């Protein structure tokens, strides 16, 4: 025990104290229960408070457990919550871009499609919710690999299969592609997964800037690209949508 860090032990004891019995305690109660000097106890409480693990009731000055603890317990964002929050923004993106929109999350070494908005024309389209896409070749997969460390380690393990002559399979090339995506904040797939099809994706982050998913538009390469370049207004539209959903998650979770 001697090698443990004393202030962390004291902080843990305080959290346990606040979790049991009376839920709100004053500084002197906490200090005397743990046999600490008031100044020492206050310093630890202030630190816990700054991290959100403890909150102080402004009226009574008493301390209680903070919302951050709750968040640690449920840190994963429900994908159906993500879809509900994204609904209006993704409809808007489909309308303004004229292309289909997909929302994807990391799932079992691939991208799980959790939401799909049809391309706004009268053509017959099939809902792709529940489908999987590869991590290494799609725009959604690249964005997730670039921003989510778990996705990154998974994409390093999977076989990076060549679906078309344009699929990037070599490790160094792939890593530099992810660097590029991180640098500009979005990723593309120009005929790297399907011949004739291009897509553009941007990351969705929660209030702590953790990547929780990605949003993409997908369409015929002739419409997504102009003279071999990705059309900048489409890039802007996808990034705007991702930002709007991220803002919604940040503003309203807890």
């Amino acid at each position: 025990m001697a090698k443990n860090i004393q202030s962390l032990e004291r902080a843990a004891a305080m959290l346990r104290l606040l979790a049991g019995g009376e839920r709100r305690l004053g500084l002197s109660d906490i200090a005397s229960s743990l046999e600490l000097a008031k100044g020492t106890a206050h310093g630890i409480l202030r630190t816990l408070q700054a991290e959100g693990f403890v909150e102080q009731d402004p009226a009574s000055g008493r301390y209680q457990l903070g919302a951050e603890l709750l968040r640690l317990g449920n840190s994963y964002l429900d994908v159906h919550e993500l879809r509900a929050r994204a609904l209006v923004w993704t409809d808007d993106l489909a309308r303004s871009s004229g292309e289909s929109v997909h929302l994807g999350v990391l799932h079992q070494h691939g991208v799980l499609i959790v939401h799909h908005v049809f391309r706004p024309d009268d053509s017959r389209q099939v809902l792709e919710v529940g489908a999987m896409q590869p991590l290494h070749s799609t725009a959604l997969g690249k964005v997730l690999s670039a921003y989510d460390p778990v996705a990154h380690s998974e994409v390093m393990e999977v076989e990076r299969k060549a679906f078309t002559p344009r699929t990037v399979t070599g490790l160094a090339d792939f890593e530099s592609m992810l660097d590029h995506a991180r640098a500009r904040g979005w990723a593309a797939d120009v005929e790297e997964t399907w011949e004739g099809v291009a897509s553009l994706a941007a990351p969705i982050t929660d209030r702590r800037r953790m990547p929780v998913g990605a949003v993409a538009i997908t369409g015929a390469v002739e419409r997504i690209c102009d003279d071999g370049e990705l059309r900048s207004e489409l890039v802007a539209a996808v990034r705007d949508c991702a930002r709007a959903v991220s803002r919604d998650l940040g503003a309203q979770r807890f």
Partner: protein
Amino acid sequence: MTDAHITGPFIAAIDQGTTSSRCIVFDTDGRIVSVDQKEHEQIFPKPGWVEHNAAEIWTNVQEVVDSAIAKAGITSADVKAIGITNQRETTVLWDKNTGEPVHNALVWQDTRTDALCKELGRNVGQDRFRRETGLPLASYFAGPKIRWLLDNVEGLRERAERGEILFGTMDSWVIWNLTGGVDGGVHVTDVTNASRTMLMNLHTLDWDQKILESMDVPAAVLPEIRSSAEVYGSAAGGALAGVPVASALGDQQAALFGQTCFAEGEAKSTYGTGTFMLMNTGSEPVNSYNGLLTTVGYRIGDQPPVYALEGSIAVTGSLVQWMRDQMGLISTAAEIETLAMSVEDNGGAYFVPAFSGLFAPYWRDDARGVIAGLTRYVTKAHIARAVLEATAWQTREISDAMTKDSGVELTALKVDGGMTSNNLLMQTLSDFLDAPVVRPMVAETTCLGAAYAAGLAVGYWPDTDALRANWRRAAEWTPHMDADKRDREYKSWLKAVERTMGWLEDDADEE
């Protein structure tokens, strides 16, 4: 890319709803340019009583209109027309000389007229006026609410008979104020709102003298009944001064219009805390023998009216909220899908949420909620699945009733409302209905419907075909369930429904 920059002119829609008032500005493609919204106070003077302050509502309407126009960065010169949609049946009476409401508005959910409705049924019962009005005697509708106010506000009946008092549902209240109020405001309502008063004859589309006499409502208080899409007058002030006020539709009818259900047999269903399903039945009112309401769908100018059958489900989204708030089984509404997806099926459990009785097509107020088919095997995930299935089966029951009454098979169901973000529910709905379920790209179908009707009235859009061309499919779910399984499951559901009935003895002392 069609998003270069949004250009005018525009249509503004005002949605005076149960919890808030909103204004949305739309462009010619039916896209949203700007929105503003403001909630108003819900007043509960006694259990079962619900009131709104109509003066507060009018203030809020002015604010959201001015703010939506400012957010869009446009002026009244850019707006071709104003459309109105509103919470239905909510009733206000006001003094035509001062413009002051004589009492808070009685909201559609308010049940204070229950006893009055029973009394009005006399020996005939709740269907006494159904042939003329398409409605059963129930506390929602405006006629009995007017009668209650006349009976209970001191001196009101005398003032009403002297012609000093005006009645309106919220469309009339907003239009009268918008067009000048005491300074020349027009006192009108549209056929869809009038069809929810129980005072309008569905066949003549005029106030029914016999019913007015039976209900003891003086004709002098009533507005003129107009079509849903025509110019009633012009806005007298505010950011939209001078702009024609050109449509009015009750909210569910507006959603039917916004979903472009212009052909006989087309139907929409709006999934909120409760659910309202309406089916276009063409130019003749269809009598319901299966517990549905007959109502006016819309009327465009001088064209013949279009009628609809309506079925409502009391508890749908609110059942999910109940799982969250009362049962604590989920922490957000969206999580119901996650929980339900963790199992393959309902494990034999069926949940009939008859919390305040069964609505369409049964109308049994002696029923109460039941979870049937419980075994040790059943987990909370199976219950979550049963919760979603309850909404889907109840929709199926209404759809079956509509088919029986109208003889028209449902070919596809257009859906809107918050629950459409639940993918499992939408798939289940399609499986149980054995029909495609389609979600449009604009979720705000209610406001859109009011905007469409106003735009048609002023020639902003040429005809309903142009509106259809605006409609965009955002998603479509197709049935994947085999017929035997569907029939078996439906049978089990119906058995569970049976078990809810007769729970309350007599009518006495419920709750």
